[in-house]
């Protein structure tokens, strides 16, 4: 099954996406990641105001079978979390780039975003 890789996002090797808007960024997990996990039954999001570092585990998604850590693609402060996805974790499966987003960051080090994968590089990583 081919996974969607939107052209306007940046990607972490660990399968998170980042949508940049000025100094803020929205984070979620990729279509490929939700395909691999299947049946997401629980999402644990970071606390509001938490300062996270790039590559730091800051959320957990649980499928029926396993728990997986989610890593922040960049450093920053959590300024918004998606309550809808913790109430209805299946949104991660049905709309990973839209309603299934996880949290919003005020980005601390914009240069970190430049180091993330382009859609083309991420597609290559997942063998597409």
């Amino acid at each position, binding site marked *: 099954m081919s996974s969607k890789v939107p052209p306007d996002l940046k990607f972490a090797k660990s399968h998170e996406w980042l949508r940049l808007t000025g100094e803020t960024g929205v984070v979620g997990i990729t279509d490929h990641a939700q395909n691999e996990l*299947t*049946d997401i*039954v*629980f999402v*644990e999001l970071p606390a509001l105001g938490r300062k996270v570092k790039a590559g730091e585990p800051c959320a*957990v998604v*649980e*499928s*029926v*079978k396993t*728990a997986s850590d989610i890593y922040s693609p960049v450093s920053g402060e959590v300024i918004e979390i998606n309550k809808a996805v913790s109430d209805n974790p299946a949104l991660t499966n049905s709309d990973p780039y839209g309603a299934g987003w996880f949290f919003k960051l005020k980005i601390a080090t914009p240069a970190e975003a430049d180091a993330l994968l382009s859609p083309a590089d991420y597609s290559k990583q997942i063998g597409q």
Partner: protein
Amino acid sequence: MLKRTPLFAAHQRLGGRLVEFGGWEMPVQYSTIVDEHLAVRRAGGLFDISHMGEVMVSGIGALAFLNRLLTNDAARLDVGQGQYTLMCNEKGGVVDDLYLYRLAEQDYLLIINASRIDEDVSWIQKQRATVPDRAGTKLENQSDSLGAVALQGPLVRAFIDKVFPGPFTGGHPVAHASDLKKNQISGTIFLGAMAWIGCTGYTGEDGFEVIAPGAVLEDVWTQLLAAGHAHRLQPAGLGARDTLRTEVCYPLYGHELDAQTSPIEAGLGFFVSLDKGPFIGREILAQQKLHGTTRKCIAFKMTDKSAPPRPGYAIWGSGADASKIGVVVSGTQSPCLNIGIGLGYVPAELAQAGSPIEIEIRERRSPAVIVAKPIYRKEPAST
């Protein structure tokens, strides 16, 4: 190098996601675990269980030997009947749990766990060497030549006869496979090979397990999938097999059972027959049946929305001054109940259904309640 079953190519063609399980490369799922789980509860699922082991025990001494080796009473089996039973060590710990079928007057088939084949076979050989009538007890490990599939679900009885029209020439005498009742087994010739159809399973649903030589297993698989297509039969993987058995609280070796755990602690005293004469582990198991055990296997349900419980998580008593009382051995999100469920061990005096407990999930404690087994019970069929 992981071992592959005779159905490996079939799993690849169906898009099965293959993972390591007990040294085998097995499909964990084809669509999703929840989808396959619900298919088995509502219609039917077909599982490859060829990784499981098959050992034949036969001869004039077979019955006496098996009754010394296993906890349940093999003498209660008529030809064509099977029983769940356990193999214990001298301390009452479980070497393996298994299904024992009596195929003919002096022929018995043991279906053992994939991860335990080597230990079981050497344990059985060692025990055989100690019995005086060992010359009359033949052992044959057929795990490499035999494969098996499990056909499970409320609708599977409707089409099994299409694939196995009979006649049934071994085991329990039946006209049709669909006439088999719980724990009965019957043999028929399928593409020139002997196939055994036992009415049993590991899901809490009606269904059958088919044991046949690896050479014809792909035909069994393909024909069952084709015959069941109109009845919404789906291939199902080990992921759904695990969630299905957890909902109905069937033990899995390495989780609820191990060499340090007795069947009595696990709540399997029903399958330990004290009145059949001596068997390995009997003294301790008799004591435990009489005086109880210090710990017991409980089933629980999360009471609030939480992350699913997982094996290894700590179980706490309820309340601010509560302490750690036990450990989770199986846990998942129940696809039927849509809440976290699990099995675990706690001190026997705390193992009351209805008691509140807490499960520690990533350093936070979430409320749960001990429930009677099974956690999920099928509603009576509507008329």
